[in-house]
């Protein structure tokens, strides 16, 4: 594989390889090996058209721990704010010798365009495009689920995951729905009808409008951020009404089985989709998701760039 554009690019075996590689890399980090050598002399460009702290720093840390050189290129304060097109930016990066471009873009499909246009010869990793996909987030969620529920080996057969909230605007939900099912898990999407996308019945997931009845048989609940910045219409009456019906509070968390974990891709709106006491409770793995993110992104960069070009 040369690019990682969509969770659908990954077969079950590919996904397990990424997760296994991530767990070996996490073990190396735990053993105190701060820097590993496989990407020495390779250049990774973080091309971020959208604000992001956790994903960009996560990719940056991952690339640096593998000894790659990292160039951070954010749209703000660059030639993009002077009106440069994606194509011209890409040609510039190519001229600088980028071996891989990690791209986040507000337009769905921008990473695909970059990978298939011939503008650049290196690999492309989708770090979130519009409301389309965010495959490395799905991989780190799968890694987190596997660590807690499947002893960090094999796939996720039989695991039940509820993905709750703003599915419509969520690239995290889309990538997770694909990847978790590839790994054998079953996914239930829960949210108000206005925040479930058109055609959701073709995703292969169970769909529910009621959170209270969706919690007692799950192994994990993944709460989604309400993406107000992408909302151009009234999707629900009020924030209060939303958190009443779809927020995860301690009363609802108590309905979950004892072993079930609470996840959130961040950034959280505390008090909106999740209350502070649940976010900080022992069953919350939200902080661990962040550190798993670095290991999983190291695995993706190693598998894309660690061998001969384009054959991994």
């Amino acid at each position, binding site marked *: 594989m040369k690019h990682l554009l969509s969770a659908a690019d990954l077969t079950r075996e590919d996904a397990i390889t990424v997760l296994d590689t991530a767990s*070996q890399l996490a073990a190396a980090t735990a053993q105190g090996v701060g820097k590993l050598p496989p990407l020495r002399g390779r250049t990774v460009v973080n091309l971020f058209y959208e604000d992001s702290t956790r994903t960009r720093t996560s990719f940056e840390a991952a690339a640096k721990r593998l000894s790659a050189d990292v160039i951070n290129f954010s749209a703000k304060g660059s030639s993009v704010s002077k009106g440069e097109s994606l194509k011209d930016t890409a040609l510039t990066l190519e001229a600088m010798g980028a071996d891989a471009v990690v791209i986040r873009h507000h337009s769905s499909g921008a990473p695909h365009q970059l990978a298939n246009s011939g503008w650049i010869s290196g690999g492309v990793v989708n770090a979130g495009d519009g409301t389309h996909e965010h495959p490395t987030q799905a991989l780190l969620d799968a890694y987190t689920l596997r660590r807690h529920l499947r002893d960090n080996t094999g796939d996720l057969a039989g695991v039940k995951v509820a993905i709750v909230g703003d599915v419509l605007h969520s690239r995290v939900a889309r990538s997770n729905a694909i990847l978790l099912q590839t790994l054998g898990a079953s996914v239930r999407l829960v949210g108000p009808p206005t925040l479930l996308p058109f055609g959701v019945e073709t995703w292969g997931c169970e769909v529910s409008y009621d959170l209270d009845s969706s919690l007692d048989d799950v192994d994990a609940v993944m709460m989604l951020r309400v993406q107000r910045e992408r909302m151009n219409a009234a999707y629900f009456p009020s924030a209060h009404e939303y958190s009443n019906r779809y927020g995860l509070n301690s009363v609802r968390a108590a309905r979950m089985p004892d072993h079930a974990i609470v996840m959130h891709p961040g950034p959280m709106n505390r008090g909106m989709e999740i209350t502070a006491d649940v976010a900080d409770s022992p069953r919350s793995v939200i902080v661990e998701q962040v550190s798993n993110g670095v290991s999983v992104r190291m695995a993706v960069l*190693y598998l*894309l760039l*660690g*061998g001969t070009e384009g054959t*991994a």
Partner: protein
Amino acid sequence: MTHDFEPATRDTRVVLDSDDISRALTRLAHEVVERTHGATNLTLMGIPTRGADLAVRLAAKIEQIQGQPVPVGALDVTMYRDDLRLRPARALQPTTIPADGIEGRLVVLVDDVLFSGRTIRSALDALSEHGRPQAVQLAVLVDRGHRELPIRADYVGKNLPTSKSESVQVQLVERDGIDQVTIEQA
């Protein structure tokens, strides 16, 4: 060095059988005990996959001789190889460091086949990430010659003259269901 299992053909011959391997490991164990003056400061680090299996066996044999358990770990060298760019990205193997670490210890690296010496060079780099051993030595089941680097083994189970076009395959019960070493003509 390859480990791909091939059914025995006319061009494959067995050079070590199960008893030969066991005797070679017993002799290696005695040599290690002798040369390390009782193996008191010894740590064995096997190189996955089969070197790690051999390290576990060797540790058990040394324990039988000395009556003291020997710390044994595994050291994956994949990310330290000099030929990473020549092949697709390879799967990583586990690295396990014994509880007392390797700092100040006498580390004996254990591998199945010594060939070009490049794996051992990678292992020396990988090892240095985990500490500074007092000394590092090398034990191999088979030395087949054709070194490309100034590296030699301190303990050799069997010297096996080969031509470069031949491939040597070590099979172990732990992974392959059988203990044997074969040479296959390419």
